[in-house]
Every structure is written in structure tokens, then in C-alpha cells.
């Protein structure tokens, strides 16, 4: 069953790329547009992902499990959330970078509610993005957004963390 699903996925991928190649050959505009979208976004991600993963690798090699456990683990208290929100402010990219970083933090002993807070605040608290946002939408807009969303993110992450801990949750096989 599992293998079948994987094969269907691979087949869909092959069909997709054949479609793009043929579109470019015969000049089929929608196909070309999709191809351009694919290339644009791939380039965007290729600019960030290798760096992100090298930093993750360095983090896994150098940072001691005890120190992550102490600051972001079960007994970290309020400071754990403050640390990850600050960390998320400096994270580059978006959600797709936050997931692997969160996974590494979890492996090093960060508690679930802290990593969920990290993921969501990566979406909303990145500093360069927020500065950019306020230059177009005004500071008032950004401030309301941050002040309303951060507490909600922390509360919902604590709830989600507790909820799945009681259900024997396993992160990535």
C-alpha cells in the first residue's frame, strides 16, 4: 500500500515534468507559465535551503543536548518561549525553513509547545519581514498584528503540546 502510494507520487512527478518540457517545445503558454513559476520558486529556495541545512548540521554537532534541554526543555518555563520567539525573529525564509530547525531543536530536547511556538512565530515574527511589512502597512498595523498573535500562538502551542503528549505522539519516523 505504502509503496503503491509512493509510485503514484513518482509517476505524477514524471508526468508533471514531461508536461512542462513538452509545453516549452510546442509553446503551450499555460505550461510555460507553470514551468516559470516552478523555476522561480526553486531558485528562491535554493538560495536559502543549503545554508539553512548547513547551520542545522553545525547546530547538531556543536550544541550540547543539556543546554537545549535546560533553556527550551520541560523545565524551561516562560523563558523557553521568549528564547524561541527571539530565535524565530532571526530565522530566514519561512515555514519551510522553520520545520527542519524545529525538528533539530526537538531532537536536542526542546519541549513540544516550545517548538510549535517556534514554527508559528517564524511565520509572523521574522524581523526583516516585519520591518518590510510596516514600511508598506504602517507601524500600527504591524504592532497590532504582533501583539495579538504572539500570545495566541503561545497559548495554542501549549494546548497543542499537551494535547498530543497525552496521545503518545512521535515526531518524524
Amino acid at each position: 500500500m505504502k509503496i503503491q502510494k509512493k509510485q503514484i507520487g513518482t509517476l505524477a512527478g514524471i508526468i508533471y515534468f514531461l508536461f512542462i518540457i513538452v509545453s516549452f517545445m510546442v509553446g503551450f503558454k499555460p505550461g510555460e507559465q507553470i514551468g516559470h513559476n516552478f523555476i522561480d520558486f526553486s531558485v528562491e529556495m535554493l538560495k536559502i535551503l543549503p545554508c539553512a541545512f548547513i547551520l542545522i548540521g553545525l547546530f547538531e554537532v556543536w550544541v550540547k543536548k543539556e543546554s537545549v534541554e535546560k533553556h527550551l526543555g520541560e523545565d524551561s518555563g516562560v523563558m523557553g518561549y521568549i528564547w524561541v520567539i527571539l530565535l524565530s525573529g532571526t530565522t530566514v525564509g519561512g515555514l519551510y525553513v522553520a520545520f527542519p530547525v524545529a525538528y533539530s531543536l526537538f531532537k536536542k530536547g526542546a519541549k513540544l509547545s516550545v517548538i510549535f511556538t517556534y514554527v508559528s512565530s517564524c511565520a509572523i515574527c521574522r524581523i526583516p519581514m516585519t520591518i518590510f511589512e510596516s514600511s508598506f502597512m504602517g507601524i500600527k498595523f504591524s504592532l497590532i498584528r504582533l501583539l495579538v498573535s504572539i500570545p495566541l500562538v503561545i497559548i495554542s502551542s501549549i494546548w497543542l503540546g499537551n494535547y498530543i503528549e497525552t496521545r503518545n505522539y512521535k515526531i518524524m519516523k
Partner: protein
Amino acid sequence: MYYLYSATGLTLLISFVVNRAKTLKAVKIAFKQLATIFPAFLTMLILVSIVLFFVPDKIISNYLGNNNKLIGVVLASLFGSITLMPGFIAFPLSGILLKKGVSYMVLSSFTTTLMMVGILTYPVEKKYFGAKVTIIRNVVSLLISLIVALSVGFFFGEFL
């Protein structure tokens, strides 16, 4: 972007000088993890390229200009959830829409769902957190975006 490259390069260099074996191990971990998640990223990129074809910026601008604020918020959340757009495109677009008279509330639901709710990043998120947690997190994020939008609307006096 350059500070990311310089920071990565510098950290890598320092690490290499301090301990060569550990650094090589780190690079190996990086490649292994990247390879593991690669198929999920590819799936995401394929979905992005198709969705952006059917929902281009133009369509989003047209629909957000809707006069009814409630419909505007619903449509904005929908667009924000199903698309993926880097900030350097999303915020200038919102800035233009703002000047055209689209309310802060509608734009807030668009940008916040764009940032927090990731239907297109589902393949990647699922790989790390599993389907159940991914779905819960995204539904919760959608609710948070709505609350944020209502608060923005309230503070900008757009309810009346």
C-alpha cells in the same frame, strides 16, 4: 540575503578551524537531511507552480477589492491559505491594495494567513510533524489569523 551567506560561511570556517572532523560531520548531516526531505520539497514546488498559475496576483487584487468586508475577509483568508508568496511580493501588493481602498482588516487576513497557514507546505510539514499535527496547527493558525484580522479592523475603526 547576504547576511545569511556571510553568517553561514563564517560559522562554517570557525567550526572548521576548531574541529575539522566535527565540521565534516555537520556537513554530512546537512546533506543527509536535505536529501531526506527533498521529495517533499519537490512536491511542494510542483503544487506551488500549479496553484500560482490558477491564482495569480491579478485575481487576488480583483477579489480583495470586494466592497463587502466579510466576504473580503473570507476570500483573503482563502487566498492567503492556498497560495505561497515571498514577503517582498506580498507586502508591496498589500500596500498597493491599501491605497486602492481595501481595508486593513481584509489585508491583515490575507498577509497573516499567507504567513501562518500553509496548505502548499503541507507535504513538508507532514513529513516532520505527521498529518494530524499539521492539520491541527494549520486550522489553529487560520483561527488566529481571523482574530488578528478582527482586532486590526477594530483598532482601525473599520467595523462601522
